[in-house]
């Protein structure tokens, strides 16, 4: 059952249908920066009440892990005027199959800025870094131009709107490394170090960038904050799936007629998204599988998605995860072995290389899958792959090793026949007498 209610008549709020909303004056004319103004100029709001409202909204992070945002904000230690604190907004968007942040940055940049300012206010932060992957050069230029306008208008910077709240936003340009999306790697990258993830604890809220308390959110996450302040946490909590509410940007790609980024409530039926929203399967082919939330989330076979909705609970029950809600749709002609081989290549290429199981394991996975894909694999290889996954999962500094292992584990588990078919036939199974062979 869809948890998205009357989604066909859903009115978009993250990317409302307003021409040129990315321009500051248009954004202002459409309630832009009014949430920030209300916070800064009315007595109703203080940092705690803002955080409480976000808690009430039930907003969960949109960066992949789905951690409750209000709770994350409340992990920041009490304010010490001598200790700086930072916000990092994660626009590294590099998880294969994910392309929604880029659209948000292009079409509604000020909602990200306003959200960052609200988050900063709630956590008494004076500097927010917006980390954008280097490949998004054109969007960085675009964001910088809009940020400049927001500075000119006094929405960012010193004494915002005449209040005693001051906050700067700094746009940081990445340079090509998936790992920088991992929060602690992002912090090292910001600090001008090689972007190795850091061991936790200490957690960012205790010791983040430059050793100071830090909170990290995906860009879509704070973009929800102005909506929550304007319309109330209860309103937000009422959108979509109860336990994982809100509007969400679905990035749909692959073998559908109408790929693209769509805004709908959480809790949409996968079948609705594929068949109705994205216009059905390309060329009338049959659906074979979907990856619901970026390359690291476990693939679901077509027969596993009946009644499954896009929210944490339903996807967990179905055997996968919400991830980044970047959905890849695959038709019946898809070669799952080649597909998985290319995924393992990605993780091998992107491992930062500091931990043993990830540095060595990702390459081994790619080696074996390349061999199987080229018809040189053995059935034994499939068990070895599973073993290697167990040797990588949960044993590393960051979750990249898990992200590399899960697709292997689940794709093989769920499409074993296809993998076996590509392997060299087992001598036993093909009836050869081993003693004489």
């Amino acid at each position: 059952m869809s948890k998205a209610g009357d989604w066909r008549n859903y009115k978009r709020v993250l990317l409302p249908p307003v021409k040129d909303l990315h321009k500051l004056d248009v954004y202002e004319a459409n309630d832009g920066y009014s949430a920030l103004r209300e916070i800064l100029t009315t007595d109703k709001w203080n940092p705690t009440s803002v955080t409480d409202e976000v808690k009430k909204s039930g907003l969960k992070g949109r960066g992949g892990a789905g951690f409750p945002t209000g709770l994350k904000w409340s992990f920041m230690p009490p304010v010490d005027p001598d200790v700086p604190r930072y916000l990092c907004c994660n626009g590294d968007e590099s998880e294969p199959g994910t392309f929604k942040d880029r659209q948000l940055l292009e079409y509604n940049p000020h909602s990200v800025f306003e959200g960052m300012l609200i988050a900063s206010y709630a956590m008494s932060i004076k500097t927010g870094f917006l980390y954008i992957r280097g490949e998004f050069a054109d969007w960085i230029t675009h964001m910088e131009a809009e940020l400049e306008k927001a500075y000119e208008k006094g929405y960012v910077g010193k004494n915002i709107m005449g209040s005693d709240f001051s906050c700067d936003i700094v746009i940081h340009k990445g340079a090509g490394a998936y790992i920088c999306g991992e929060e602690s790697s992002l912090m090292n990258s910001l600090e001008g170090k090689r972007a190795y993830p850091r061991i936790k604890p200490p957690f960012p809220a205790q010791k983040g960038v430059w050793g100071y308390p830090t909170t990290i959110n995906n860009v879509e996450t704070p973009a929800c904050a102005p909506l929550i302040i304007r319309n109330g946490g209860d309103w937000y909590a009422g959108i979509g799936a109860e336990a994982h509410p809100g509007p969400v940007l679905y990035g749909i790609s692959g073998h559908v007629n109408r790929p693209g980024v769509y805004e709908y409530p959480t809790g949409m039926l996968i079948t609705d998204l594929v068949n109705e929203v994205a216009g059905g399967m390309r060329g009338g082919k049959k659906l074979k599988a979907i990856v619901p939330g970026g390359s690291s989330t476990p693939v679901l076979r077509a027969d596993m998605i009946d009644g499954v909705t896009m929210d944490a609970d339903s996807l967990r029950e179905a055997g996968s995860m919400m991830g980044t809600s970047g959905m890849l749709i695959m038709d019946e002609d898809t070669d799952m072995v080649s597909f998985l081989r290319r995924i393992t290549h990605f993780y091998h290429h992107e491992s930062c290389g500091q931990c043993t199981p990830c540095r060595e394991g990702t390459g081994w996975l790619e080696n074996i899958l390349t061999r199987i894909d080229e018809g040189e694999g053995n059935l034994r290889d499939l068990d070895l792959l599973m073993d290697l996954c167990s040797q990588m999962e949960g044993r590393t500094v960051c979750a990249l090793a898990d992200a590399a292992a899960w697709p292997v584990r689940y794709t093989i588990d769920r499409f074993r026949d296809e993998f076996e078919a590509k392997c060299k036939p087992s001598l036993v199974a093909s009836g050869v007498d081993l003693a004489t062979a």
Partner: protein
Amino acid sequence: MPTITIDNQTFEFEGQQGLLQFCLDNGVDLPHFCYHPAMSAPANCRQCLVEVGMPQRDRATGEVNTDDEGNPVIQFMPKLQTSCSMQMSDGMVVKTHRSSELVKRAQKDTLEFLLINHPLDCPICDQAGHCPLQNQAYKHGPEGSRFEFEKVHKPKHIDLGPRVVLDGERCINCTRCVRFTREVSNSDQLTIIERGVKNYPMTPPGVDFDEPYSMNVIDICPVGALTSKEHRFKARIWEMSKTASISTVGAKGSNCYYWVKDNQIMKVTPRTNMDVNEFWLADEERLAYSTFNENRPEGPTVEGAPVSWEMAWKAAADCLKGVEGSRILFLGSAWATVEDNYLLAKMADALGAPAPVYLPHVEKGHGDGWLQTDDRAPNAQGCERLGIHATSPEAIKARLEAGEVDVLYVMEDDPVASGVCSASDMSGIKVVLHHYNTTNQTLEAADVAIPAATAVETVGTFVNVDGHAQRLRPAKAIAGVNRTLSMEIGKCRADRHGTPFDKWYNESNLVNCQPGWVALPAVAAEIGLEMNYKGPKQIMEEVSSSNPAFSGATYSAMGELGVRLESTGVTA
């Protein structure tokens, strides 16, 4: 006091402590590679994983929940934790490979990963025999390899700098070497380059890894990826004996091991002493050992002609006999031990001569506030504390020129090389010279030349620049038999179990020389002075009990790590 339970054994502990170090200190041999106590813990090798649990607490009351038998309920963390990055806390329960199959399995798995791209060239690797990777793979690793692909090829035999060679394929990316240059020596000469499986440590183009402490990375590298250019392929670890002693290069007295094969020093490596050099040794302290091996004298000489030891004692005594004390100049030495200088001072006193003086070997600007010191000699502090004070070459020269000196008695130094005067300028006086090397420029002027045992062949005490009194131990044997020396010498397996009839027992390179504490009493006896000591230990007992500047500095108190003497206010 807070407690922690490790494999069912409960320990008390105090303060903030890291779990891995605590385990190591308490005899739990947890395998690890990247952790080093002097540097930050990136927890990247993943070898030190353990199970960690904490007593479960009631959410409402904060009280520890207990089971039916009243024992606390332990909640284990869902993932294995790296013990190197784990801070201990009260009530923590830890399971290592000794009690957890999961941990055992994880250790084996990580080792399997570490070995897939490792060249496994132990037979030609200098690290073999003392390689943490080899040892741990042997103890905890898998039996075979399931990896059936081409290994990653990386640059090999690369001179990172003048003294350190890199084999990129052996590197396991623990980053210890990089962290050393970043956090310890602050030279910032090394970084990991590239990403992922292509990672390896390197200098940036145009930069040589030539900092004065570069060779420390060789010791801390847990594999054979970094080796010493100078020691490479010279000796396998099991062919050498190792002796815990101290460095004699400079006044820091860094604690070190001397490695010996065939009675030659093969290399010098650091020995941990948190009060002196911590874990480190300067490159110069490692490399200045050729003086111990080369240009060594072949027994005593009189007027340049070889003589027996008895003749030498006699000849030296003859030089001194009948000379008015005030006309004998005793030159002590900042290269010689406290014991030897003490005996010299005693001899001077008995002969009515003025107290010995010594020539400082100070090179202004050489010191770096760390292990390199301006003072290039190891025991100036010891001399000063004995009342043997520094003089200058000019002052000695003036005395010689003024004709005030009939006999110059030199303990293990080289006044000609120090610029006192030329050897020919000494022709008018008698010179007795205790010397280490045939390169000693005063030899030419010496009437009697007595080969002295060097710091690696004797037993004795040095006092370092900070007033730390430490013991020297003999690392190599000298010709002849000396019970004190053979008891103290470091032995390798072959030495310990061998007899002179076994073919590995080696008599090559034995230098015919004598320690000062043998030579000086022998000369004294010929003059009729009594200097009866059982050995240097007894001499030091006398020094420490009679001279407050050495209070407490007995052999047993100094042990392997030395004792810090009270400051005397005297600086060498």
